[in-house]
């Protein structure tokens, strides 16, 4: 059969996000795939070298549109490390609760994209509605729905409003009450099984060779999670588990995502109960005249997509000298996707891409 070159995305109907893949196909089978990012490249890392330490907060959260909060955390942790700022205990708890809410919101968004891709429109709409309830909570905490700029060097910008605990619990119960419906309609459905089982399999060997992190690695059975390995915020204060699956295919990855959401809800309940009183913010020097001591640091955390890192260097000035984000979608979207697509059918490109949980802005930055 004749080999053809097919441009998949960024305008293709089966593509979510500003991303494109060049496929070499023979009939319906993919022989070779080449990722083609760059549609969203805004040079954030370069722009950050022109802005003061505090001004950069409005940029970092735009790196991952769906879950901006772990980016804020990374930037704050790096600046705290360089400038030697301590974070109060209550702020650590607030950060953890806030980040877990963000994780649930991000997973619901991912579920929307994935269910939509497979044609489960009802489930997709539920997921979007439930994410919106979480955005309502964010609006109350931070004043903004999507880009919050809430985590700050030295803590968080402000304390939780009065009575928020009850409203978080109520919202999470409401989302949790939807789990049986989700399971009946989607997760235990035969259609989902047939579409996703043994599709886009990343074996353990491939995952280790190509630098997989997050769900891609956890779907092969390894409990690799930075929240446990190198605990930050308040993750070492409460007890929680890491869900895994064995097979490494799209089906396993989406199940890991589902189990993670439920685990996050339980973790938030525990954190809310244990939360100490006290201040949420240690004062930083005047941001307009703030010079951070020269040095370099590398910090990492577990975002909803996997291990997220940040290398930051300062030369003692009022702006960062170099900022470089290590994002999980980078290896997933550029190395693993190209490898996994080989031999799959064109109809499964979106399926595999969404199950690998790739967000294009994280690759482009």
């Amino acid at each position, binding site marked *: 059969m004749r080999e053809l070159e097919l441009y998949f995305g960024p305008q293709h109907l089966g593509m979510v996000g500003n991303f494109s893949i060049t496929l070499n196909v023979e009939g319906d089978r993919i022989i070779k795939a080449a990722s083609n990012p760059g549609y969203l490249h805004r*040079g954030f890392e370069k722009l950050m070298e022109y802005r003061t330490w505090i001004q950069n907060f409005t940029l970092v959260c735009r790196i991952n549109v769906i879950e901006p909060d772990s980016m804020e955390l990374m930037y704050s942790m790096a600046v705290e490390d360089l400038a030697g700022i301590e974070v109060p205990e209550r702020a650590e708890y607030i950060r953890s609760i806030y980040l877990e809410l963000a994780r649930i919101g991000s997973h619901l968004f991912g579920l929307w994209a994935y269910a939509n891709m497979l044609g489960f429109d009802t489930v997709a709409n539920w997921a979007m509605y439930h994410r919106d309830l979480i955005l309502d909570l964010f609006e109350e905490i931070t004043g903004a729905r999507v880009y919050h700029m809430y985590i700050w060097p030295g803590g968080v910008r402000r304390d939780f409003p009065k009575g928020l605990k009850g409203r978080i619990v109520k919202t999470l119960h409401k989302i949790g009450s939807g789990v049986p419906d989700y399971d009946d309609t989607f997760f235990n459905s035969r259609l989902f099984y047939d579409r996703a089982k043994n599709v886009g399999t990343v074996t353990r060997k491939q995952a280790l060779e190509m630098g997989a992190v997050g769900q891609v690695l956890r779907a092969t059975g390894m409990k690799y999670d930075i929240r446990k390995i190198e605990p930050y915020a308040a993750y070492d204060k409460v007890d929680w588990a890491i869900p895994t699956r064995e097979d490494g295919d799209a089906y396993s990855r989406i199940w890991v995502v589902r189990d993670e959401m439920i685990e996050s809800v339980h973790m938030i309940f525990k954190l809310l109960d244990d939360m100490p009183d006290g201040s949420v913010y240690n004062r930083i020097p005047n941001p307009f005249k703030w010079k951070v001591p020269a040095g370099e640091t*590398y910090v990492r955390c577990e975002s909803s997509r996997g291990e997220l890192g940040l290398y930051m260097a300062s030369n003692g000035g009022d702006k960062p000298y170099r900022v470089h984000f290590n994002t999980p979608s*980078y290896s997933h979207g550029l190395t693993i996707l190209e490898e996994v697509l080989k031999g799959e059918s064109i109809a499964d490109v979106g399926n595999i891409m969404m199950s690998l949980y790739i967000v294009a802005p994280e690759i482009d930055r």
Partner: protein
Amino acid sequence: MNQELKKKINSSFPSAKISLPNESRVVIEVNRDAIISVLSFLKNMGYEHLSMVSCVDWIKEDEFELIYFLNAYMENDEEYGEIEKSTILLKTMISRKEAKYITAIGIFASAEPYEREIHELFGIYFEGHPRLTHLLLERDYEIPPFRKDFDTRKYVKEFYEEIPFVEDREEGKE
């Protein structure tokens, strides 16, 4: 744990400068010729996850700094050991005048897109890389844009000010 690692590296590579800024970070500085052998040494020690390759342009010193970030995957799937906690920052300096280096793809397959990115944004050529094509940018710049002598503000001014504003045209200024 990290002290032991320091001893082991020192005995194999006496010229390497090793510092331990905190309990979970190891910074190793080596000569530019030694990177590939140190990388494969560390991979055999269990640091088999190359999580990032970064580059810093130290323009005053007239040098590029290449940094390889190494982590370890878990030895078994359930328990956490000490080795996963540490991140290794393996560094080397290369001259800005001769921006050339050797690829690490032979040891770590995940280095491929990072080296492409550095080639594009800093203009460092990686010998032996099979695909040093454009990754993110769509234009060919004289100075690679992430170098410190590329002035973004000046570039934006020159690039966009040639295009007239709509208001100017309406008022017949042109």
